[in-house]
């Protein structure tokens, strides 16, 4: 039988506020246990939550980015259950009226096709603390530093039909929340973690199969492995005549298997009700308009603009617009008066290859956008040929870094390191100085080139004969010799033209 996979995702996105969602404690990761827990986070008697508006702003930003409905009046609810890392005995979340409803995200699959993933909702809630079992004998520790960290839980409709689609969605979402600067996207630290609901059904069947929810996946690799295993397991169960029992499961990266944590029978009754300590969260017009005005240009419209304004191919435009750092690099270079198409070629060609080779992100690039811009300008104006430009790029790559940052054209950079750089020469001087010092300048003087061509031709009778007998390759060989004789500096187009002319 053919089986269809049905997947929906619930993603917990940790928002980038400096303090917690309902208290003034810091949200910084990695502090000593319980040092970032106030009386509110410890759920001391009498302590009360107060909403951090910064978390609401980030949720609205997300809602606007995915074309969702923003509930101007959303309600916090209590989700009641007992657990040591949940100090109040309830989690403050949103239930019936979340801040964001609907909207969606377009994903691009490997074959270039796209699919719109509809979202059900996104709601604000607080994170729980952490239980620590390893360090204690017969006891467990509780660290409440994470308790109260603001989360946006983003829920999709069950619209994905393969693990690949689920991964593509998770990556697109991961990218978007960083683009919006509402989440640092750090999956190791748990800033972005996914629960994946998986079910299978016979192809063509309308009703959904029974789902199992894989909890807390914090890497795309594990997500892929977990889904693959879960799908295989569910199909095997059904084909063996067994029924799938609705359950929450955990993925074990060591074994590559999923294991049921609890089934629906022991599912908890959370006794949701509106939290009487928190008035409805109201997004007034002033706040809404301010957030709307602060929205960055999003990948989709950026991509369209690159195609339209810079005449880039859709493929290139998409690559350059997909993440914020890349697009900022590109636009900074273009704003420095470099030809957009050439910048695109160099970024997606040589620069990208170098970054990949050294496993660096664009943020870590030793070449700054202004430098690339100048390099491209010097190629365009004939000062450099491609070969020498590549040499220059290699030189800049290995030269001691001039600066750890570059100028941003957009607000709120995701990677804007503090500009604490020692005084230095301007970039233009740097590039031109390097060209001068390294003798990279292209020879475009016809007389000078002709002289070299004549010298080479005088020693190349065999090749000339080959060329004249119709072997086109011989011409390339002669041109290559000329380039070599010029130490690579001759203008290749001029050389080509001149050699052809002399042999005709």
């Amino acid at each position: 039988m053919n089986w269809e996979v049905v997947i929906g995702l619930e993603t917990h996105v940790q928002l980038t506020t400096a303090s917690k969602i309902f208290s003034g404690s810091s949200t910084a990761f990695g502090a000593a246990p319980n040092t970032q827990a106030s009386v509110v986070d410890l759920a001391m008697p009498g302590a009360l939550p107060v909403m951090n508006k910064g978390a609401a702003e980030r949720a609205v930003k997300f809602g606007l980015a995915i074309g969702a409905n923003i509930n101007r009046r959303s309600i916090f609810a209590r989700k009641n259950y007992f657990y040591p890392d949940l100090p109040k005995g309830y989690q403050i979340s949103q239930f019936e009226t979340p801040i964001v409803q609907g909207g969606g995200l377009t994903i691009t699959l490997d074959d270039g096709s796209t699919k719109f993933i509809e979202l059900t909702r996104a709601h604000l809630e607080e994170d729980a603390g952490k239980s620590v079992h390893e360090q204690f004998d017969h006891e467990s520790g509780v660290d409440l530093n994470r308790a109260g960290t603001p989360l946006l839980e983003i829920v999709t409709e069950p619209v994905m039909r393969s693990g690949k689609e689920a991964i593509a969605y998770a990556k697109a979402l991961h990218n978007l929340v960083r683009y919006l600067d509402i989440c640092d996207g750090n999956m190791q630290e748990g800033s972005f973690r996914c629960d994946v609901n998986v079910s299978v059904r016979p192809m063509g069947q309308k009703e959904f199969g029974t789902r199992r929810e894989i909890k807390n996946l914090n890497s795309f690799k594990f997500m892929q492995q977990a889904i693959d295993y879960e799908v295989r397991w569910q199909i095997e169960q059904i084909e063996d005549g067994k029924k799938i029992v609705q359950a929450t499961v955990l993925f074990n990266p060591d074994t590559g298997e999923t294991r049921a944590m609890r089934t629906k029978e022991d599912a908890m009754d959370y006794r949701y009700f509106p939290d009487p300590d928190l008035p409805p969260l109201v997004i007034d017009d002033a706040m809404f308009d301010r957030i709307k005005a602060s929205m960055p240009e999003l990948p989709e419209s950026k991509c369209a603009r690159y195609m339209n304004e810079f005449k880039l191919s859709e493929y290139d435009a998409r690559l350059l617009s997909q993440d914020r750092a890349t697009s900022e690099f590109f636009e900074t270079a273009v704003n420095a008066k470099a030809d957009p198409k050439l910048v695109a070629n160099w970024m997606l060609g040589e620069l990208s290859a170098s970054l990949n080779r050294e496993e660096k992100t664009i943020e870590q690039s030793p070449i700054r956008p202004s430098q690339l811009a100048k390099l491209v300008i010097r190629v365009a104006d004939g000062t450099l040929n491609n070969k020498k430009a590549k040499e220059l790029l290699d030189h800049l790559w290995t030269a001691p870094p001039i600066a750890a940052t570059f100028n941003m054209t957009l607000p709120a950079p995701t990677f804007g390191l503090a500009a604490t750089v020692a005084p230095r020469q301007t970039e233009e001087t740097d590039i031109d100085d390097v060209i001068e010092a390294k003798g990279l300048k292209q020879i475009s003087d016809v007389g000078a080139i002709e002289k070299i061509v004549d010298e080479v031709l005088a020693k190349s009778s065999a090749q000339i004969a080959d060329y004249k007998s119709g072997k086109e390759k011989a011409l390339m060989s002669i041109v290559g010799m000329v380039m070599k004789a010029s130490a690579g500096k001759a203008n290749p187009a001029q050389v080509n033209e001149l050699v052809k002319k002399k042999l005709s």
Partner: protein
Amino acid sequence: MSWNTFATVAETKKALDAKQVSAVELAKHYLSRVSSINPALNAFITIDPEKTLSEALAQDNRRAKGEAAPLLGVPIAHKDIYLIDGWRTTCGSKMLENFVAPYSSTVVKNMADAGMVTLGKLNMDEFAMGSSNETSYFGTVKNPWDLSRVPGGSSGGSAASVAAGLTPASTGTDTGGSIRQPAMFCNLTGLKPTYGVCSRYGIIAFASSLDQAGPFAQTAEDCALLLSAMAGFDPHDATSLDRPKEDYSRDLSKPLKGLRIGLPKEFFGDGVAPGIAKAVDEALDVYRKLGATTVEVSLPNVKYSVPAYYVVAPAEASSNLSRFDGARFGHRAKDYTDIVDMYKRSRAEGFGAEVKRRILIGTYVLSHGYYDAYYLQAGKLRRLIAEDFKKAYEVCDVVMGPTAPEGAFQFGAKSDDPVKMYLNDIFTICANLTGQPAMSHPCGVDKDTGQFVGMHIIGNYLDEARMLNVAHQYQLATEWHKKHPAL
């Protein structure tokens, strides 16, 4: 030093400001009175003379430095539901028998800023659940007027301590009548302000949407002074009203001519003891003589107050009390096998019967499939009751009636029948459901039982200053509030 232990807050303030007495002297006087009288009453759970005297000295030093504060040096005792940094705070429960508060509630801080000196922590029904102070883990509080009778609840210690002259004033909290009913039982003036006027931060939550802090004193004038110190916007409480500070004494001396008193027929029905109805009628005559007019109004939905309350309050309480799990503070059972067993045993041992009953009710009404039928319906009733009052205020300025349908009762008279006990709050609960301010002032004696009667005044939102004016004018014309028990 000889000090009239029944001096009002206003008189005490005057004496302090005139330097006829110091804060330290007053603290010593009341501490000594507490040690001699309290054993018979059990109004205090905790006293800490060292802390009290150092607070008193600090307030005297403020005065010496020329600092002014509205109640500089006036003693106050707090219901043991208010957290005070460094003080044991029990909430009347075994669960918190040894809990020492790590921070102070906003109301306590505000009162300390106003110059008040903490005398101690007052007994109360466990987690403020009760109407007779019979549910306290620390024992019942006796009514100073008749030691065989209850002082009312849940703020029983707050009422008994002021009535017995152990403190000039006290704080209470009122979730369904827990200030007003004990005020009536002990012949005091007590006020529950509009929801949001006093911060709830640092007050152990019973039912968050109903709880409100308020003062107990002998007079309305005192309550105005106390409320002015307690109230104010608090950024730590999201339900606190963001509005400027108010002087609640500003209208005290206004004459009552033209005041329109609404008398809901629902407050004068069969359920009210005849002696109470008579006392209230006589008090209304006094009001008419002072220039007020009375008009009958109807609050048709107010009859749903008790059932609505006994859904909302337990529901919120069941969730609010979840934090008492033995994990981080409070009682933890000695022998347990795993975490769930620890929760079960710690809570079974730490909570008393009434608290458990309400947690069970609350858990039930919030359960899947029941929420719509109970909590949601109760929410609708709250709105309907508020609508009733809104309509009533079109023809009157304040609403009056008896504070409770019967006066102070004997210990054990109702403790076996929760419903009977709950019905004692039948008139007070509606103001918590709507969030309106309400108060009780002494207005006579039920001649059949000899027990005190309280006049219940319910005002429109934020109308505390007017209500205090009304009660103050009544007290200028009457002597009921000047009676003191012989102890």
